[in-house]
């Protein structure tokens, strides 16, 4: 499963994208965040305030409870400030 990061989430994690293979039982976006936070300080830092970081699955905004099944690309980013 491909993960992509933007803005300060990208800076804190220190990469633009990566491919991960989470273990069984990681079923939702919230599960994935919890699992990533266990992988290292940089993820801990990026997700220190989980409520702030937004997620999208295959280019569509999703909530933390969204299922990962079938997802090709999962994105994490701060609240948007375009326009």
């Amino acid at each position, binding site marked *: 499963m491909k993960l992509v990061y933007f*803005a300060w989430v990208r800076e804190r994690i220190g990469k633009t994208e990566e491919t991960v293979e989470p273990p069984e039982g990681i079923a939702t976006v919230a599960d994935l965040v919890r699992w990533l936070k266990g992988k290292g300080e940089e993820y801990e830092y990026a997700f220190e305030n989980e409520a702030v970081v937004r997620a999208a699955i295959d280019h569509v905004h999703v909530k933390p409870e969204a299922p990962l099944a079938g997802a090709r690309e999962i994105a994490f980013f701060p609240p948007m400030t375009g*326009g």
Partner: protein
Amino acid sequence: MVAAIRIQSEPFDAAAETAVLAAGRGDIGATVAFTGFCRDEGGRLSALELEHYPGMAEAEIARIAHEAEARWPLMGLTVIHRFGLIRPGETIVLVLAASAHRRAAFEAAEFMMDYLKTRAPFWKREHLKDGTVGAWVEAKGSDDAATERWSG
């Protein structure tokens, strides 16, 4: 009606876009063109850096545009959002809405801007006059509130 959506680093020409939208049509009574500019924040800023999520930016703006088309009888809708380094005084975003009557054009353009601000995957970072790269711009609660008023 098919909305024209472009994500680009180059400047745009609002007048040319309006001309394209209105060319040869006798049914358009009103166009509203919103242009967003990079401010210098009291001289503090040398530029804004705009990062975006390619693919999702286009897709999300298309979803917002479809919502606008469902709500108002639009005869044209153009959205151009720039990315990259943008200097004070330069344009960032154009939303252009056309309809038979003014109210639909005004409301659709304002709706598009409110949703662009809170849902389109773009992030701004400040580059300061002293040469340093400043902070990522924080999302404003007032933008969420502006988006909220269109629901319900």
